[in-house]
């Protein structure tokens, strides 16, 4: 496994959990400090964005995103972090329609209150009662959502696209997407300043912009442009994380594959490499029938490599050279489709009365999987034990979880 963050919060426990919470306070402190100094503690300054008088919100947000994005790309380009692992852990599912509805509502709430949830906390901290009331409102709104979930919950989870990234959509390497976003942001900054000047003139304010006022912009643009170029340059590094080598080819066992098919099918691309006839007869849900000879036509080296490639042979497989160029992880299903048939498509034996908690748990999972995969009635519940199978918690919130 590649370099993860130094303190991945989700797996912290005990003393390091306390350290993680201290870190959260420190990061929050820096976040709040910068927001206040950018002017985000004042509702009138934030609201001016929506009357096109002062596009500070837009400029700060986008240059913030671009800076952090380029930093992440650079770090992943030189192998300091694994972009795929970071993104899997930190990014929420894309619920297209829920996010459009939620975004429109949040935007409306933004202009009515003058703040977004984070900036209302900053505003309250600088003594503004309106900021305090907004934050209390957000708490009230969360409560309303929880209580009214049977009704408003109908709007939740609509347009589920799984974890989806812009570079998947445009089928380009992440660093190229980052470069495009950077250029787009700069063009929008320049356009935005034109709009600001136009609106000022319309209000009768004709003060020409001083030359020295442009200096910070030039500085910021040069930093971002240069970083984008360097990040793009890392694509040419030998051994950059793009080329899959034999080291990233591994085996996946049946329980692990079953769990991922049930929990996060969007992280997998399953290629059934058996003969077309047997694949068409019966295959793992979601699998594509791609006999070995056709693998070369899939263009695997050119796909973004965000999903793990799972190869399903009949029994075992030497990884063919045609998938070696795949940028992401490549795994072969242990014991192939035969192993899957034994594990998932055969009714499991009920454990005896002396079975351990783990055995009972494994049995329950297999029994549930068997009925899910075959559509057959699940077996009666086991009397002994009483250990409930708990599915792994799904990672959802993008930080506001």
């Amino acid at each position, binding site marked *: 496994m590649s370099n993860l*963050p130094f*303190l991945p919060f989700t797996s912290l426990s005990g003393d390091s959990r306390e350290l993680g919470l201290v870190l*959260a306070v420190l990061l929050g*402190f820096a*976040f*709040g400090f*910068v927001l*206040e*100094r*950018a002017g985000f503690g004042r*509702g009138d300054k934030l*609201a001016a964005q929506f*009357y096109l008088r002062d596009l500070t919100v*837009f400029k*700060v*947000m986008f*240059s*913030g995103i671009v800076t952090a*994005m380029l*930093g992440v790309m650079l770090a992943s380009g030189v192998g*300091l972090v694994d*972009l795929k692992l*970071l*993104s899997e852990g*930190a990014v*929420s599912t894309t619920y297209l329609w829920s*996010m459009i509805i*939620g*975004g429109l*509502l949040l*935007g409306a*709430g*933004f*202009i*009515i209150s*003058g703040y977004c*949830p*984070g900036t209302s906390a*900053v505003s309250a901290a600088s003594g*503004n*009662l*309106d900021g305090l*009331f907004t934050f209390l*409102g*957000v*708490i009230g*709104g*969360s*409560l*309303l*959502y929880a209580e009214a979930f049977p009704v*408003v919950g109908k709007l*939740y989870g609509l347009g589920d696209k799984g974890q989806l*990234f812009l570079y998947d959509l445009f089928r380009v390497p992440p660093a190229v997407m980052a470069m495009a976003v950077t250029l787009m942001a700069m063009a929008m900054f320049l356009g935005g300043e034109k709009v600001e000047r136009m609106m000022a003139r319309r209000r009768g304010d004709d003060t020409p912009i001083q030359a020295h006022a442009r200096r910070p*912009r030039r*500085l*910021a643009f040069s930093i971002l442009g240069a970083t984008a170029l360097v990040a793009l340059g890392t694509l040419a590094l030998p051994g950059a994380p793009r080329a899959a080598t034999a080291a990233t080819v591994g085996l996946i066992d049946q329980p692990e594959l079953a769990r991922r098919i049930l929990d996060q099918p969007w992280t997998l691309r399953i290629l059934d490499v058996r003969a077309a006839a047997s694949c068409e007869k019966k295959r793992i849900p979601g699998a594509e029938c791609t006999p070995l000879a056709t693998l070369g036509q899939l263009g695997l080296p050119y796909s973004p490599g965000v999903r793990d490639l799972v190869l399903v042979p009949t029994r075992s497989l030497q990884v063919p050279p045609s998938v070696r160029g795949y940028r992401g992880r490549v795994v072969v299903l242990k014991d192939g489709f035969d192993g899957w048939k034994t594990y998932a498509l055969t009714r499991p034996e009920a454990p005896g009365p002396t079975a351990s908690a783990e055995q009972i748990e494994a049995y329950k999972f297999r029994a549930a999987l068997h009925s899910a995969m075959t559509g057959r009635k699940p077996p009666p519940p086991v009397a002994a034990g009483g250990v409930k199978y708990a599915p792994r918690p799904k990672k959802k919130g993008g*930080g*506001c*979880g």
Partner: protein
Amino acid sequence: MNPQKFWNPYLAGVALGLVLLAAFLVTGSGVGASGAANRMAAAAVNAVAPAHADATPQIAKLKHGGRSILDDRLVFMVLGVVLGGAVAAYTAGRMGRKVIKGPRLKSNHTRLVLALTGGVIMGVAARLSLGCTSGQALSGGTLLSVGSWVFMFAVFGGGYGMAYFVRREWI
């Protein structure tokens, strides 16, 4: 004392981006705010009516591992945001009890009612879209999540769409 001027927006943005980058590289996740408000709401219900909290799935799911509902990264982060915001405002000479509104709106009372209303709408919205401008737009946008970018443009759309109707509040 005259309050200090605000930072240049582009340089403030770069500073914001560096904070976000540090969060990703050190903790593996971004920043957030509405998640903390959600937990505060759940903790309040749990304190007043624990049986009702258990019967409400959206609240019950925040109770796990026997830890307090408030024992969460985002609650601590918002605590930090409040501290950082207070220090920044104080040192810049902007600290003080006031109500911020546009020049035409005379009533503080109206402004506070609107602030509360907007907050409630955002509270619901942030749960629907799995995060607010911090957690969804900034953090997810950084990692180029399609949902985050769609959300971000929807926020601007919603703001511009609503702006005309509340113009007396601001301009």
